[in-house]
């Protein structure tokens, strides 16, 4: 899955950066299963269009409809520079199935390490 273009960008009330992307193929159940390896996926399937959301603390949140190729991604405020590529990484490693999960978890750990360094030892917040 790839991003074709960004159609909307705005800063949200909570300081997160929202971007709306058009993808080259519709969001699928398979992608939701892949996402579930990295955060909390919630789906509301009884609606006119099946809705889903993905939440990953300190990283990003995603919302959209399965079967649709438009997705809204919010990059959390705290470490926006560190997580700016995270959605792109999700799309890239989704294509690699199981090996992609392990690879992305490794990248994710290095991002968390940078977060820990930035927070410093006294903050108590362990990303």
């Amino acid at each position, binding site marked *: 899955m790839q991003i074709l273009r960004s159609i909307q960008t705005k800063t949200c*009330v909570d300081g997160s950066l929202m971007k709306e992307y058009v993808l080259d193929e519709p969001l699928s159940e398979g992608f*939701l299963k892949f996402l*579930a390896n*990295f*955060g*909390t*996926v*919630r*789906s*509301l*399937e*009884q*609606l*006119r*269009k099946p*809705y889903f*959301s993905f939440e990953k603390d300190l990283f990003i949140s995603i*919302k959209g*409809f399965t079967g*649709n190729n438009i997705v*809204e991604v919010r990059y959390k405020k705290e470490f926006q520079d560190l997580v700016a590529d995270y959605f792109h990484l999700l799309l890239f490693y989704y294509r690699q199935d199981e090996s992609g999960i392990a690879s992305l978890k490794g990248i994710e750990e290095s991002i968390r390490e940078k977060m820990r360094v930035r927070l410093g030892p006294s903050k108590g917040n362990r990303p």
Partner: protein
Amino acid sequence: MNPVPRGVPSPLIYLNNAATTWPKPPEVCAEVTRCLETPFFEHGRSTAGGVTDYPSATRDALAVFFHAEEPDHFIFTQSATDSLNLLIHGFVKNQKTPFHAITTELEHTSVLRPLHTLEGEGRLTLSTLPFYEGRIDLPEIKKAIQSDTRLVVMTHGSNVLGSLQNIRPVAEYCASNDIFLIVDGSQTVGQIPVNLSEIPAGAFVFTGHKALFGLPGIGGFYLPDPDAIATVRQGGTGTDSSTLVHPQDMPQKFEAGTPNYPGIASLLAGIRFIERFGQDAITNKCRGLTALFTKELKKVTDLTLYTPSPDLPVVSFNIRDLNNDEAGYILANAYGIITRTGLHCAPLVHERIDGGKGCIRASFSYFTTPDECRVATDAIREVAESADSQVHPD
């Protein structure tokens, strides 16, 4: 349902009229077109003749609409926010010493931010009164009065709770106690009859793009006593150009720069539209829609309705287990229902009603239909019933 122009998702049910009304009456669109197709004319700014002097014609229409005595005491601004800033900062500029001001938790940030800024600068001390069941009545205001209270700024109707304030006794009390009252009528003007001959406020603020059906970018205020407010803007007025001192005559005192002619034309046409259909008919229709909508929402379990019977066509609610942002996203993208979510620029109201998380707001206009309300409440019910969905843990 509304006719949907090209490029707008269809079908579309527009329930965000408390932000900006849509659609606009055809005569508003036609008047704006007519305004743009003819040379702009205003005494002092053009020699074009024989065409409408929109600012003067609209001031006359506003005076009739509001039952106000002085057409020239209607000032055009770019919005209610602009009006409130001019009035609040202009009032403070006129005061030689710091003083006490009163406002309420119901206010929009267009009131709260200027007052907060001035408080931070040491120009005033501020009491922000809590609301009870959506209202702040005169006894609460009287209790907050101090010996140096000189200003009260409060809304006529809440943009979140849809509650109407009993403003007349507040205005009478302030008028008889030398306290300047600024009333924010953004949510009431065009929704209910507003008779300024019965509301002796220091200033009354309105906006054009909501229930007056005008364009965004036009607003104004009525100021019976111009001496109460100092000018915070100076510039071209088309009059007295030989002097560098800004004119103190009305309306020039508060109108520097070329006016928003298309916006003013839209306001004129919007007022004519309301007069043609009758304010009472519009008020009654919107109240009927609000009653229908709230009646249907009360049947939905897993839903919190913040005002069971709003006075104004504004219905705020939250769906349990679904944040308002997600609910608004689903309603818009799966059902074509446009609402507004979040804090609605009224953070203190939300602090009280939902802990500052925000909510979903549906708001109606004369052009909303009962069918649209039914379709929308059915969709909300469907979303609420689905909210107890599967969650895949991390």
